[in-house]
């Protein structure tokens, strides 16, 4: 039978006289009979579950009305008011809404604070006698996790979890329905659904997606269409019959709990309940993903299993044997951990293993920080790799997704401590067939141990879709049967269990030369034997190639399309590589290298020119300066762009450095001295820095005074360095007048040097009015102008 919730409460309260801006929950105490009357109306119109008037009855929301200390009182009164209407036939759902704050790491409210706030409200609701808990209208999966964990901590009753999705099909903080359903199902939500924000038309695909990812009942409570603000009032346009027309489709999609949210009235609920009664039994849900194991981040799900593409678990966030990473983690510096995460994703990893096993540190704190930081940086799900129970819980608790626990072995302590955590936080487990008797040598022994772990896990409440089996890799150099037994284990796992499989590959090659080759060959064999999610170093190019070819050979990369595309892209890169200059004239070669910005090749070229007895003046004039002139012309004509000019300037710089290093006594011509500054009050210096770089590498001595420089300081510097030119920069209209003032002070001081100005808001006209000798619209022009000013 389809369960029917009630409709909107807030608008009904307002119709009954609740003043705008007043606390709706306060009526539970002040006018309980009005609240009961609304419940009664909904029951009379077909609702068989009513929702308490406690949507905002959490400490944080109530604080807006100065009622933070009335949580217990208001929730109890709400349940009493509902009970008056419900009698025994109708069930009461304790409504739990959002705190209105974003939860860390996306917001300021600490996860534990959110958890406590929900625990307080849900305790009040359960002790007042609700029949189930309804967590609703939540826009952030982390807030839902806090509320669901709190609910599970205080009660065994049914918990319904309803998120709000936007028109893009995701929650405000980026969670899609499939990811939400997989995570909430694993965490033990009894009913999973969506409410508010959208009308039934928009919620239908959301319902379908939810139903594809969980076997739990689905609940949908839509708004009466998309809201419109007309004449200062929010109006929901959809009438009862129109709304009820969506009911068969929703039931067909797998929905078995229906109700209404904003804009729905008793009339809507009546129409919905009649339509539901006509539609008959709930449609059998088709869960597409129940033969695989899925892990999720906040916004992405990764599926593992037979007949699915190979999933790569990146192993690089592991300090074992890595001094620098170890030292960084110990020092609380997680920059290298983050870098390793991003690099592995770029290299093709789908899941990231996170190990914080540095001796002598607080592993739990390190794990919490690593998981927290990575959850903000990557959307790949994480595997929490630790043997420390506290570190495991710290990581699982803070992670806004469904992690993989690496690993659960068959030692009694491990089973006892890790399995309840997996269940509580909805994690998947990597089953490692080690027992207190040690490492099983044969495949059949490994199957026996794996079977024991699975048995214990199922006993602890885990589900078949929570397992990933490790085939265990030993060193082939120490035991010639090691590889064969692992491959046999994979086959037996497939035969007896069918769960996805994993293993760390690299152990196989320990002690052998060319380990990467051995690892890659072993990977190909293992994939063929049924390996679904190898744990490996994704940077190994040979491994990458092996995975790509295996995907073709195993039929995951249809017609080798992706493989061929990647090959073509690599060919294109190879063909684009500029060919080495064949010119015999070393000066032309240097000139071309500067134009092409070939920083690496310029050094040997300059050395070659020196060894051929070219003078520094010749090298500078005929090769380097000539190149910059060509670049300048190309830039002026729009044939090349600023970053290219800067790359050429860097190449010039490398050339000059080489000349100075090779011939310390050599004289290079200097065109003049330029003092550069961004004027007082202005903190933008990108443009000024570009001008400095170009002037320096075009033969000028540059005195760069930086940004926010007072006119007096500029005048002093000009005097001190006997500058030929002063370059002034201002970016904003508010700081432009400083240009005028600085030029005036320079002139008043009787200094003869020339002035040149530029910056985003400056124009040639403004420069002229301010009394500047030149205006430069960009760095290349600045070089030209400086040369002109010096020549005057």
């Amino acid at each position, binding site marked *: 039978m389809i369960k029917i919730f009630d409709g909107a409460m807030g608008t009904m309260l307002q119709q009954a006289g609740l003043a705008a801006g007043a606390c709706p929950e306060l009526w539970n105490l002040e006018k309980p009979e009005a609240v009961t009357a609304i419940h009664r109306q909904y029951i009379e119109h077909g609702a068989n579950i009513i929702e308490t008037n406690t949507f905002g009855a959490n400490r944080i929301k109530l604080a807006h009305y100065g009622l933070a200390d009335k949580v217990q009182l208001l929730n109890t009164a709400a349940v009493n008011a509902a009970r008056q209407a419900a009698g025994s036939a109708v069930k009461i759902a304790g409504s739990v809404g959002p705190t209105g*704050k*974003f939860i860390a*790491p*996306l*917001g*300021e409210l600490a996860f534990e604070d959110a958890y406590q706030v929900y625990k307080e409200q849900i305790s009040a609701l359960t002790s007042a006698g609700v029949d189930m808990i309804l967590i609703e209208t939540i826009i952030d999966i982390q807030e839902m996790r806090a509320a669901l964990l709190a609910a599970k901590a205080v009660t065994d009753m049914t918990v319904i979890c309803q998120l709000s999705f*936007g*028109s893009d099909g995701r929650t*405000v903080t*980026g969670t899609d329905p499939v990811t939400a359903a997989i995570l909430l199902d694993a965490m033990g939500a009894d009913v999973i659904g969506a409410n*508010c*924000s959208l009308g039934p038309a928009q919620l239908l695909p959301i319902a379908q997606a939810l139903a594809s990812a969980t076997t739990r009942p689905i609940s949908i409570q839509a708004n009466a269409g*998309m*809201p*419109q*603000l*007309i*004449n*200062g009032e*929010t*109006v929901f346009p959809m009438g009862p019959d129109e709304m009820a027309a969506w009911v068969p489709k929703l039931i067909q999609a797998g929905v078995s709990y229906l109700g209404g949210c*904003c804009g729905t009235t008793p009339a809507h609920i009546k129409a919905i309940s009649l339509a539901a009664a006509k539609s008959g039994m709930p449609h059998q849900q088709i869960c597409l993903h129940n033969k695989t194991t899925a892990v999720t981040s906040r916004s992405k799900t990764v599926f593992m299993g037979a007949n699915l593409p190979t999933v790569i678990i990146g192993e690089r966030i592991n300090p074992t044997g890595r001094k620098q990473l170890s030292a960084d983690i110990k020092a609380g510096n997680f*920059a290298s951990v*983050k870098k390793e995460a*991003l*690099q592995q994703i*770029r290299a093709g990893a789908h899941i990231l293993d996170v190990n914080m096993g540095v001796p002598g540190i607080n592993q739990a704190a390190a794990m919490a920080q690593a998981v927290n930081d990575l959850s*903000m*940086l*990557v*959307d790949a799900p994480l595997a929490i790799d630790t043997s420390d129970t506290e570190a495991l819980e710290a990581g699982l608790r803070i992670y806004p997704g469904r992690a993989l626990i690496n690993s659960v072995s068959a030692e009694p302590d491990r089973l006892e401590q890790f399995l309840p955590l997996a269940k509580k936080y909805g994690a998947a487990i990597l089953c490692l067939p080690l027992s207190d008797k040690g490492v099983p040598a044969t495949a059949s022994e490994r199957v026996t141990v794996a079977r024991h772990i699975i048995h214990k896990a199922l006993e602890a409440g885990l589900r078949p879709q929570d397992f990933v089996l490790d085939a265990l890799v030993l060193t082939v150099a120490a035991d010639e049967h090691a590889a064969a037994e692992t491959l046999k284990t994979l086959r037996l796992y497939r035969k007896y269990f069918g769960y996805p499989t994993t293993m760390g590959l690299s152990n196989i090659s320990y002690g052998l030369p060319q380990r990467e080759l051995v690892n890659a060959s072993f990977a190909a064999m293992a994939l063929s034997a049924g390996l679904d999610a190898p744990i490996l170093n994704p940077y190994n190019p040979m491994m990458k190639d092996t995975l790509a070819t295996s995907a073709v050979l195993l039929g995951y990369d249809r017609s080798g399309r992706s493989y061929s595309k990647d090959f073509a892209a690599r060919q294109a890169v190879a063909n*684009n590589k500029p060919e080495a200059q064949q010119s015999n004239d070393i000066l032309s070669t240097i000139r071309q290298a500067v134009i092409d*910005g070939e920083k690496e090749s310029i050094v040997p070229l300059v050395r070659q020119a020196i060894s051929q007895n070219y003078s520094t003046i010749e090298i500078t004039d005929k090769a380097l300066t000539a190149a910059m002139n060509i670049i300048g012309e190309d830039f002026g004509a729009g044939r*090349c*762009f*600023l*970053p*290219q000019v*800067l*790359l050429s*300037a*860097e190449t010039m*710089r490398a050339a000059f450095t080489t000349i100075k290093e090779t011939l310390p006594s050599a004289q290079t011509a200097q065109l003049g001295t330029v003092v550069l500054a961004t004027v007082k*009050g*202005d*903190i*933008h210096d*990108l443009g000024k*820095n*570009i001008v*400095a*770089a170009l002037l320096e590498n075009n033969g000028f001595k540059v005195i760069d005074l930086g940004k*926010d420089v007072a006119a007096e300081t500029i005048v002093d510097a000009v005097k001190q360095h006997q500058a030929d030119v002063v370059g002034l920069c201002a970016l*904003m*209209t*508010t*700081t432009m007048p400083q240009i005028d003032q600085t030029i005036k002070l320079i002139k008043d001081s009787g200094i003869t040097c020339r002035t040149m100005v530029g910056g*985003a*808001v*400056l124009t040639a006209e403004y420069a002229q009015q301010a009394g500047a000798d030149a205006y430069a619209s960009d760095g290349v022009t600045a070089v030209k102008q400086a040369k002109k000013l010096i020549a005057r």
Partner: protein
Amino acid sequence: MPIYFPTLTSIDIAETRRYAGLAKKPDFQTTMLEAICFEAQLLATPRASWSIYPYDSCRGLILSQPKLELTGKSIKKHLTAAVDIAVLSVTVGEKIEQTVTDYFGQGRYTEALLLDAAATTAVEMAADQINSIIVQEAQKNGLTAISRFSPGYDDWNITVQPTILQLSQGETIGITTTSSCMLIPRKSITAVIGLLPTDVKPNPPEHNNHNCQSCSQDDCSFRKESIND
């Protein structure tokens, strides 16, 4: 007043290329550009805060405490139909711009320029996320959001910056202004988003989407890039 820490799971390479002035040079140093976007992602610490206020469009008055009367024809025209205004501040922090300065000092000019462009992309992407949250929340109340508009756009004088920062509680996420009304960190954005009732048609499109073609600032360097696209 929500505070939010946007997530940047990547930095848009095409946008970075555009901000670096390379829109017409799509093959320039792709590897370097990718590495820089990657680095920007590691260096950025995105933070945002915003508040929503009623708006009196007849008087161009944001009904905050204290009230703010808008000056500038363009901003008032942009907000003609708005009944509420979201005022927001976004930053990606100082670390990224410090690295730009360091790179210049080390003679790594190209990387400095590209990192600066990547930082601009990052702060715009962070602002887009906040924009999207505001749009979704507004939809729940039957309001339609129009495009965001920042001090300094068109004729809206940047001297309003400190007030806009105050209305969005930008100080709480570490943004300050200089005496010349610039934001510190530099890679920060303040903006307003007009929220319109459903029965009110927005102004003609050119006033809803601030773009180079409609802007009166002829000398803006990004204008050339965009118009030439």
